[in-house]
């Protein structure tokens, strides 16, 4: 049913195919119009609403998020026929955008930093959602702050307390959480102390200045930790260091809690992270608020509302740590979070 890159259909399935670089979705709410008695007559048909999703690149993960957004928009609209009538969703990378794209869009969703920066450079600041934004670890100068203040922004990073909760649950009973941070980065002291009080844990930070220090700092930290929590910081955790960090911790029988599904696959015991599906659900939640009102609801950056937990059962088994199911862990973490 593709016609010139345009898909005109109402998707109802859960498994959505990954779309190409440029595609559009027109949602004709014929269910509402044809199967709800009197629906078409009872309300005035509003004009079509256009949503533009700008992707930062061609990586598969963006397409997965786009597909999931479409899916959840359809679900949302099916349940809210009074808000959604006819929605047209277009996704594109910046270089493929047609002229005057911003004027024809009722809502713009950017995925990733590059797309967000692109919209800023084009002066778009209303009715816009920035998603998949990595929160930089540098506590003194967040390079993204300027772009995202005053706009609906959803970070990729998880809130610290959420990660800490999982770390506590992944120790098999221990309460000492160790975190490696770069000397310029890491969470603020006040946040750490508050988390310690909230969660009943002890957090030890080991500041690393240069590469020579990482081994010794990690060694000492492991002696005082029941679990090592890896926070997103490319200076500490990267492809070059992951092998050493995972093997050193494993030798000391200390589990590592990561920040991505890949980290778990590599050898971390668990990780809390947002999947494309989680990201899309949050985007659609925010989109709904934009669609339901003509005024902008400016809220600022926020952490992902939805998240998943991954567990490496083999590592857990080898460390002698029994972990409940991923769903149960996620529910335990959610239960501890203030709504």
């Amino acid at each position: 049913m593709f016609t010139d890159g345009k898909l005109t259909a109402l998707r109802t399935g859960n498994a959505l195919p990954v779309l190409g670089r440029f595609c559009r979705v027109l949602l004709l709410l014929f269910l509402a119009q044809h199967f709800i008695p009197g629906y078409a007559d009872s309300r005035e048909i509003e004009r079509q609403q256009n949503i533009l999703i700008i992707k930062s690149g061609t990586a598969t993960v963006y397409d997965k998020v786009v597909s999931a957004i479409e899916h959840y928009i359809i679900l949302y609209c099916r349940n809210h026929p009074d808000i959604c009538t006819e929605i047209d969703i277009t996704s594109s990378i910046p270089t493929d955008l047609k002229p005057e794209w911003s004027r024809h869009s009722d809502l713009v969703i950017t995925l990733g930093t590059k797309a967000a920066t692109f919209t800023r450079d084009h002066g778009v600041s209303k009715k816009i959602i920035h998603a998949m934004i990595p929160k930089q670890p540098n506590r003194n100068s967040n390079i993204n702050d300027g772009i995202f203040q005053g706009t609906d922004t959803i970070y990729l990073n998880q809130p610290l307390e959420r990660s800490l909760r999982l770390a506590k649950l992944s120790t098999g009973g221990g309460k000492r959480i160790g975190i490696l941070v770069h000397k310029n980065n890491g969470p603020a002291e006040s946040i750490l102390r508050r988390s310690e009080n909230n969660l009943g844990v002890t957090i030890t930070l080991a500041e690393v200045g240069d590469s020579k220090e990482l081994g010794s700092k990690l060694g000492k930290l492991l002696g005082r930790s029941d679990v090592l929590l890896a926070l997103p910081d490319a200076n500490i955790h990267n492809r070059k260091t992951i092998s050493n960090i995972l093997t050193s911790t494993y030798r000391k029988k200390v589990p590592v809690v990561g920040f991505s599904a890949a980290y778990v696959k590599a050898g971390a015991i668990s990780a809390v992270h947002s999947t494309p599906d989680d990201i899309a659900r949050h985007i659609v939640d925010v989109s709904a608020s934009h669609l339901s009102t003509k005024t902008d609801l400016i809220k600022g950056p926020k952490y992902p509302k939805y998240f998943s937990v991954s567990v490496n059962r083999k590592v857990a088994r080898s460390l002698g740590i029994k972990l409940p199911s991923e769903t149960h862990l996620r529910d335990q973490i959610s239960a501890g979070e203030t709504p």
Partner: protein
Amino acid sequence: MLPAICFQIGNAAGSDPISEDYFFEELPVVLSATRLSQSLADTPTAMTIIDKEMIRASGARNIPDLLRLVPGFAVGFYSGSRATATYHGLADQYARDMQVLIDGRSVYDPAFGGVAWADMPIEVDEIDRIEVIRGPNAAAYGSNSFSGVVNIISDHPADRPGTMLKTIIGEGNVRKIYGRHAGSVGNFAYRLSANYDEYDGFEDREDSADTRWFNFHGEQTLDNDDTVEFRVGFSQGNYGEGWSDIFQQTRVLNNRYNFQQITWKHQQSPSNEFQINFYHNYQQIEDSYRSPIISDVIKGLDDLQGFPEPIRPDIFALGLSGGNYNFQMFLDELKLTDSPLTLSWLGFESDRYDLEFQQTLQTSENLRLVWGAGARQDRGESVWIFHQYDAITRNQIRLFANTEWHISPAWVINAGGMVERFEDKDPFFSPRLAINHHMDQNNTFRASASRAYRMPTLLEDHINLVVFLDEPLNDLNTWILATGNLDPQSIDSFELGYLGSFPEIGLILDLKLFHEKINNMINEIHNLDIPDPDRGLTDPIALATLNNFNQLIQEGAGTYINSGEATINGLEVNLDFRPTPRDLIFLGYSYANTYGQEAFLILDGTIQSDNGISDNAASHTFSILGSHRFDSGIQISSAYYHVGEMTWGGEGDLIPTFRRWDVRLGKQFTLPGMDGEIALIGQNLNGGHVDFFNAPNRDLVNRWETRFFLQASLGFR
């Protein structure tokens, strides 16, 4: 084992921004199923793990002292620095029934058996942990993993980079200095360490010792899938030995030891890994001594002190020859010279070359398989022990497989076995089967059965220890003689165990009920039927006189035979309690009821046995270690060890109940760029207990006295 070398972090300035790719990029699988070890709850046998915390808290200066913590272990120091360690007793100076591995390298000596602990170039401070498998494990580690396996794992170089100096001084003339440097260059991580030790040993013995050693461990990470590890080390030590006895006179042994090891590990995929390991151990003990010349020995005999010294040799000769020979005739007719008697108890050289291939496969989600094949050559050389200048060698090949099958989350089966074929021996198979049931996340029950073998050592199979006259191969008296090709002794072991793991309160409790049956035991016995060399004599008077002379030295000879059996039933408790990170309590207890029959004498072709074996193992062992660390960095710890009355085999004696109390007081401190610790260690605070030798009639009693040591260490970052 695991590829980990140097750490490279991205940007020293700390300004690397992260992109969304960072959260979704694929990463190499580091901890694949094949590289993961078993958790305690899944292991088929009871284990005791001695980790760094316990090592530090114990104040132990050597590995045998650490093994005192393990339930069922008895440690005997037969001289101040040289020890034997055994699980469930039935051992002498050379505990031959236990496998000991250091970083995957068997340090069991092929010639004598046992482990020359003092010669091992490793410092307790660089041990990451000691995993003691309490029970046979030949299915995984091969023959000699008979009563247990001591698996010593050293620190990885990348884990403790920097330079460290440590020194100990104290009573008993303890002087020690140890230095270590670890670091990395590119993808190559290394550790160099060197040590010098000296110690006066027991109060009333001439057993002072000095040892020096060097050790190197390097690991080259080729890529994410390949690592090569290199290890080399050597040691040289001088050990006072012997006592006031014509055939065990005090002397100094010169020991040399070195090893080389190379291991290549390759990860074909996350579910398929193999490794090739090769090592060589070399041990040399120079121990030969010459008595005074025969006439001077005679002049010193107690029974002849009533005669004028110049005529004592003639009186002696007349007595032995029925009045036929004076001393000169005695020498001439017996083809003797007035020379020293020469002998060696220990002098030998041994080599072990070992090559092993091992593959680990995760064949399905719940099934893991380790299989491999190996080949080994053991070599012993000693004219003193084997009565020949040529070396004796023995080759072995082996094939093994072990599986870990998680039938369900609650049930785990460990099954495996090893087939070994030794040169000139029948092949044998050592199987093991165990099932573990996880009642819940805290409680596991296990049941296991296994069979293991202990091969006779080269010495037991080939010894021909002779008292020579003046020079080797000028035979005078046969002391110990191998009389047949021995079979391996076997053990059948059955174990019911419980493991309670309560991480919330820091408690791990292991209980073990066991039944062990040892068959076909290799016994050292005295065979009065073994004649001494006739020195080519044909004259009946000369032969009779020579025979009388030899009977004064020793009648008959020692030998080794397969005879006897032993049954050991008992229970063991292993408790590790760490309620807070600052507190540690470790407790070990064992009860063992040992009984059976063993041979001790052959006379007129008849083997005589008795049930004295029940005395060769302690009925009870108990150890407790406690430690607390204060905010100030002060740590106080104390250990108490108890081993019930037992008789050591070989030359050892009946030792009354052994009780030892140690205390350690340490203070850690940090200075700019460095950190360190000062500790005061008091050992044997209850004083005066006896160890291994307890023979006042031989003027030979090993008595420990209370001793204090001061230890200081400084680490530079």
